[in-house]
């Protein structure tokens, strides 16, 4: 549905994108993850036809974004990181204006606007001025405007920025619902927990290029577990975690990653039998194990493994 091939873009000498490649399948909810200045916004702006790439190709639903931007606009809904709204317009007027701007036929316009009001939960505020709405309501209004022309693809650049926790939950549910209706969604976000909950796959980007994790993968499946990957285990002991960690480090193939209070985290090669052997080793060495658990490999851990722990 979205194909990006070796796309490059420079801004006044500095590089926005340096050969980024990506493929998003139809019906996916795909995340784009990377530090500030990685090129996420540039990529989404290119896909939404706001800027032209210097080289490379990008297609949405088979339509080239450079050769046929108008065709792309018909199938894409774009939501920027700071959605701009006309504060001095009423909610209804705002949606009517964009329904008109998206050339929705006059007979269907009323229904499209009413659906937008209903889906966004702003039906009761249709005559309110936009400036009177809360931040979360404004975000919902912008999303309603983005969906007016029934796009096949949604491009969302940091849509949860500035939202309170409940509004974030609300947005996540809305995006899941839209995805279940068949809309392909590309979303960039710094809120990894949100991406982890809703995305099927994520791609890492930094310095305008694809970034690979330690196993060389540039795209990570979030909903499936990969048996070939090393696993992390969190071990809680009754006393002296430092001593326990020393015993753990002696076991072949095990790496101690973190020791805190009465817990320590280790990485064990993929074979589960080895984990069982490791537990026996700890107990045999007198380590008072009270918990031996395998926390899920979170997106945050993967992010750290790709980009390191320090802010960039």
């Amino acid at each position, binding site marked *: 549905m979205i194909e990006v091939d070796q796309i490059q873009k420079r*801004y006044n000498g500095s590089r926005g994108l340096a050969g980024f490649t990506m493929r998003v399948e139809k019906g996916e909810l795909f995340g784009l993850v990377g530090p500030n200045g990685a090129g996420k916004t540039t990529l989404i*702006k290119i896909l*939404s*036809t*706001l*800027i*032209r790439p210097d080289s490379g190709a990008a297609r949405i639903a088979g339509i080239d974004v450079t050769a046929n931007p*108008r065709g792309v*606009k*018909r199938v*894409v809904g*774009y939501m*920027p990181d*700071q*959605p*701009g*709204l*006309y*504060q*001095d*317009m009423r909610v209804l*007027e705002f949606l009517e*204006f*964009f329904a*008109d*701007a*998206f*050339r929705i036929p006059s007979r269907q316009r009323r229904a499209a606007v009413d659906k937008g009001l209903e889906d966004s939960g702003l039906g009761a505020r249709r005559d309110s001025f936009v400036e009177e709405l809360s931040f979360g309501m404004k975000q919902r209004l912008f999303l309603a*405007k983005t969906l007016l*022309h029934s796009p096949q693809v949604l491009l969302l650049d940091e849509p949860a920025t500035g939202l309170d926790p409940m509004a974030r939950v609300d947005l996540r549910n809305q995006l899941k619902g839209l995805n279940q209706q068949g809309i392909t969604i590309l979303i960039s976000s710094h809120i990894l927990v949100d991406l982890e909950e809703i995305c099927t796959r994520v791609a890492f980007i930094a310095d305008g290029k694809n970034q690979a994790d330690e196993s060389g993968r540039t795209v990570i499946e979030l909903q499936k577990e990969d048996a070939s990957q090393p696993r992390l285990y969190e071990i809680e002991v009754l006393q002296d975690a430092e001593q326990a960690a020393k015993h753990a480090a002696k076991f072949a193939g095990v790496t101690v990653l973190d020791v805190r209070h009465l817990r320590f985290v280790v990485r064990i090669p993929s074979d589960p039998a080895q984990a069982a052997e490791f537990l026996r080793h700890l107990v045999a060495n007198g380590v008072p194990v009270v918990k031996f658990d395998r926390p899920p490999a979170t997106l945050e851990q993967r992010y750290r493994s790709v980009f390191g722990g320090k802010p960039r």
Partner: protein
Amino acid sequence: MNPMIRKELRQRMRERRGWILPSLYLLTLSAVITVAYYSTAWGGNDRIQGWQVGAALFLTLAYTQLVLLLLLAPVFSAGALTIEKEQRTLGGLLTSLLRPTQIWWGKFAASLMFVLLLLVIGLPVLSAVFAFGGVGPWEITIVALTTVIILGTISAISLYWSSAFRRSVHATAVSYVTVVAMTVVTFIIFGIAMSRLSNRVGNAGWTSIPESVKAPLYLNPLFFITVSLVPRRQLYPEWFICLSVFSAIAALSAILTLRNLRRSGDVA
């Protein structure tokens, strides 16, 4: 109807300046016409005829109106595109199915319509002039047409500056610099060139002044309105040159604005 025009007009009429500026405009126009009437009719000349008062008031009104509108036109157009950048709404327009030409036309038409509204609400003041005679429909028509052409050009130039800058304050300042350059600087350049010419060949009649000396005046809105006031038979050469120059500037400004609009995705 272009949705941009409807949106722009709705938003403009909701702003406080939507009624403050027309009120101030009418008050200023009325004050100027009152002062002009008393200084013409009661200025010590007992033999002055009614038509002479009418002609004097009409000239005062035509120039005052133009100067006021030259000051007001950038207010409506210089911020038209920068406000979309400041509010971060330009991206929404550029990713909709509106073409850049429609966005430009919506902004231009709405700016010009508001200025035309001021021209129209000035009609009752103008009607006072008719009571004295000395002014016919031709004079009214040609002055109104010339004023509209000048204001259209100033609006197009201000829109260009609005597309070139990110902030309204910068676009408005540069628009006023442009208005001053066209009205004052061109006149100063003409004055300097004329004084050099006079030193060489003595006093020359208008028709004997070389075109190279007159050239700066063809950019001057006050000169354009002046040549529209001459008798109909003398109108053509200078008026049409001014018309061509102003139309060319407006067209060039529109083309450059569209080019900037197409490239403004990175700031949208």
